[in-house]
């Protein structure tokens, strides 16, 4: 019991800035005026950030993790059906169980449901593009969805975002919060994308999912695996 208490009180390891993009990344033009420029001030981790919201299984329903079903109006959504699954782990490889994931994405044509999206590509009446899931005891999650399309954006001439799915995670504390994007292997737009390339070299590859024939379901859907690593707690004194 003693070790359990100590574990719960241990600080989380720092945000690893060798892994995360800096606030200012000038090739992604919107960062220029939206990047904090003064140095971050170190803060001791107190109760209000070592704890965080816990979303129970009542916060999601079964359809939330199946984006091919949760937006249906009068038929099936159009596009390539895929399965996206993986584990949420901490830095020591321990699963992060019972934590919430939220995802959102464009449809197969590269169009978002969002009312601001004016890209000249069709909306799909049967695809909403948002989902939620809670990891199981082993930190595993699984979504069924449609492979998103690439879409143009205004960052520079002929700019196109590679196909991606937005992921939002909570983990065990306010400090473990993470918002990221998952990409697809072999996408020719990746080397040209300033958002993907805002991540330090050597770290950005972690955002690319792996195609998996084992996850792929025969005569149904291709499978992709994407594991997510959140900040973990630092070592505690030797446990008895």
């Amino acid at each position, binding site marked *: 019991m003693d070790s359990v208490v100590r574990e719960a009180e241990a600080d989380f*390891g720092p945000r690893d800035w060798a892994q995360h993009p800096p*606030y200012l990344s000038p090739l992604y033009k*919107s960062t220029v005026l939206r990047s904090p*420029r003064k140095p971050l001030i170190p*803060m001791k981790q107190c109760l*209000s950030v070592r704890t965080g919201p816990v979303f129970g299984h009542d*916060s999601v329903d079964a359809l939330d993790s199946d984006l091919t079903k949760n937006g249906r109006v009068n038929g099936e959504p159009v596009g390539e059906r895929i399965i996206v699954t993986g584990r949420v782990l901490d830095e020591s490889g321990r699963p992060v169980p019972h934590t919430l994931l939220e995802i959102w994405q*464009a449809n197969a044509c590269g169009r978002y449901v969002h009312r*601001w999206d004016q890209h000249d590509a069709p909306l799909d009446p049967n695809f909403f593009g948002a989902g939620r899931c809670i990891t199981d005891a082993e930190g595993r999650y699984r979504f069924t969805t449609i492979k998103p399309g690439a879409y143009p954006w205004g960052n520079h001439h002929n700019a196109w975002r590679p196909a991606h799915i937005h992921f939002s995670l909570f983990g065990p504390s306010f400090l473990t*919060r993470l918002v990221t994007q998952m990409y697809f292997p072999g996408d020719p737009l990746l080397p040209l994308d300033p958002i993907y390339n805002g991540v330090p070299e050597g770290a950005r590859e972690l955002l690319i999912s792996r195609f998996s024939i084992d996850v792929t379901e025969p005569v149904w859907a291709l499978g992709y695996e994407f594991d997510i690593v959140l900040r973990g707690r630092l070592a505690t004194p030797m446990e008895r």
Partner: protein
Amino acid sequence: MTQTLKQTPSQTVGPYFAYAWTPELYGRRPLATNRLATHETPGEHIRVEGVVYDGEGAPIRDCVVEIWQAGADGKHAPGAAGFGRCGTNDAGYYFFDTVKPGGHGDGQAPHIAVTVFARGMLSHAFTRLHFSDEAAANAADPVLSSVPDDRRGTLIAQRADVPGGAVYRFDIHLQGDQETVFFDC
């Protein structure tokens, strides 16, 4: 803990998160809102509000502010009761209807933890909100004390008593002379 795996890198929320994060306008059930308190919630009911600005002082309309706080008793309720999420509107404005948190009893002044996400922010930013009518507790607060004098004011929400209750103003400047203090924690 042996650190064997690398943290998954952060990416921006982009411009199109609202239908997933604050989906009421799309006829969907939100997971969290900016109304943390019901009539039954004990404590002083307050509104926290502000505008999020960029480095040229322009309001940011594609920003999300998330908060996490204790109740009036200084304790974090189980579940997600102390969590709020609000997207900014076209004027960059956000608000939370909540209760004023109590202190944790650990020497820190009452405060609310704040996270800021936006299009154009590849990594989110942490800050925290203190209350202008807690001058003595603020003066003794170790986190506020670690902030340079000339920047401490960016963390103090200013109280105004208006018909209907207390409103605390907490503008967030991502950049510039008035840049809000952001923390590495």
